[in-house]
């Protein structure tokens, strides 16, 4: 039995690392703004069912295409549904799908990329040629095909996007891992006679966590774009679940009559993705620095 007392210490160490990343994020103004935007969105995503004034399918027959008012803060759509309610609820599904899909992508793509870099040789060469070929087919097309064949259940969307973004994560993770695979501390571990799984888990992966973290943030933002675009095209999150992408599509033709149904979902979606990217950008900048200089001596 490995001693349990090591666990809190490990935890403290990794928390220390997170705290450090957090501090460097906060140091950049862009990062702070991005983080605040993301936190607000996450709060809304979690809390919206309890704070929205109507149900998303409630129809106010007298008020169709209404402009914002006290009764309907964002106005109503062509059916007379409350836009405030629908906008607050409209991110939940997309955000959930994007976060899970990005997690799956980084998990399998990242792991495979790291393993390929570590194994090297012919296996690496053959698999990478295959990955290159997969990358030659536009990712959204693959997703479209699979979704059309298998349906638009959340699980399908998540797995499909997770697969598509995983393919490109392989490249990134492999590239980052290659920088370490040839380094002396890995050579030292090999010369010591460490088992391969130990080398990957103990020596290699801790050095790649930050790359994978940045990768996760970026993939999450792209997956959000992708799922919203799919919904816009009619292949994503299906009605009646409210969704920003679909709302833009539904209300776009009425832009001349009443822009509110398009404008509010657009603002919600764009602000979230911009927020994620601002935070992700600051994060990678913070990590790209020589962190050894930051450490207290």
């Amino acid at each position, binding site marked *: 039995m490995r001693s349990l007392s090591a666990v809190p210490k490990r935890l403290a160490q990794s928390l220390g690392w997170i705290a450090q990343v957090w501090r460097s994020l906060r140091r950049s103004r862009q990062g702070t703004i991005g983080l605040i935007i993301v936190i607000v969105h996450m709060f809304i995503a979690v809390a919206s069912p309890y704070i929205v004034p109507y149900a998303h399918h409630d129809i106010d027959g007298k008020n169709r295409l209404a402009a914002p008012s006290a009764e309907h803060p964002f106005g109503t759509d062509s059916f007379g549904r409350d836009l405030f309610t629908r906008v607050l609820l409209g991110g939940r599904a997309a955000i959930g799908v994007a976060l899970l899909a990005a997690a799956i992508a980084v998990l399998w793509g990242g792991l495979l990329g790291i393993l390929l870099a570590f194994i090297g040789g012919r296996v690496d060469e053959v698999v990478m040629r295959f990955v290159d070929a997969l990358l*030659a*087919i536009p990712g959204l097309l693959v997703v479209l*095909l699979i979704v059309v064949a298998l349906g638009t259940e959340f699980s399908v969307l998540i797995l499909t996007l997770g697969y598509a973004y995983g393919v490109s994560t392989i490249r990134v993770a492999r590239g980052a891992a290659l920088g370490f695979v040839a380094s002396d501390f890995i050579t030292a571990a090999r010369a010591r006679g460490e088992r391969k799984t130990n080398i990957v888990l103990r020596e290699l992966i801790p050095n790649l966590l930050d790359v994978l973290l940045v990768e996760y943030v970026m993939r999450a933002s792209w997956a959000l774009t992708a799922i919203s675009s799919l919904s816009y095209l009619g292949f994503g999150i299906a009605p009646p679940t409210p969704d920003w992408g679909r709302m833009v599509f539904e209300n776009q033709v009425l832009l001349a009559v009443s822009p509110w149904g*398009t404008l509010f979902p657009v603002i919600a979606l764009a602000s979230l993705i911009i927020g994620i990217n601002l935070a992700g950008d600051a994060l990678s900048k913070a990590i790209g620095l020589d962190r050894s200089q930051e450490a207290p001596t």
Partner: protein
Amino acid sequence: MVKLIVQRLIFSVITLTIVAIVVFAMTDLLPGDWATAYFGRWATEAGLAAMREEYGLNRPATERFAEWLSNALQGDFGASLSRNEPVVELISFRLRNSLLLGGLAALFTIPLATLLGIIAGLRRDRTPDVIISTGSIVGMSTPEFVIGTLLIWILSVGLGLFPSITLLNPDAPIADLLPNVVMPTVTLTIASSAYLLRMVRTITINVLTSDYVEMATLKGLPRARVVFRHALPNILLPTINIMALMLSGLLGGTFVVEVVFNYPGLGRALVDAVSFRDVPMIQAIALLWAVMYVFFNLGADLVTTFLDPRLRSLRG
């Protein structure tokens, strides 16, 4: 040099073969065959059987793949299921339209993004950089359909400058298409400039902080010579490969924009084909895009090898 080109070509052929297999597999092997997909809920046993017979769907997949590939190599992608016309005829004008859109977007994107990226890198952390970099994050983050929708709202609904959606047939003359291509081009330029710009900025910063640029400055050379003679070639060389990726994205990833503006290009056709389960059409368009992707990457590799003295002598 010749050897290198031959080698690259062989690798491209290998890649394309894998692509062909994947495209075929994905359209063909997913649950349900064409016939069930085509008839959907209205399928009858008799109808299915007739169709399977007609298209030879009862034969093994490998056999059908071989036939499809050899036909495709001869430029025959079969007949569209939804239109009952040869796919090639349906595609050709749309390909022209997509190339027009993608080409115009590239024409604006490449110089614009490169220039802005270099300016941001040169003025790192100063006002121009902050504006350009923040702008590029916004541009990069905003989904294409959002940019498109906003453009429609402002430029056509608000100002009435351009038609909001295209109502032309795919074979309309280019002159007629031109007013319709403006907003899709602007949308694509905004969305794809951001990526290229950020890459160019990073490369610029790396080159400018390199020892050789510092050395050139310390030789007393004027700033212009340092930037244009010492730094610029080293900035542009690694950019070529990124441009190739972007180009293939512009020519092959445009379906969202084409749908937003109802633009009669390949992307629009693809989305329709997917809705109608028009398998031959999907296969043809997917393969066409992959070919473009491989072609641009090949081109970029060869151009870089030709221009970069290090690669030139390394690979003989």
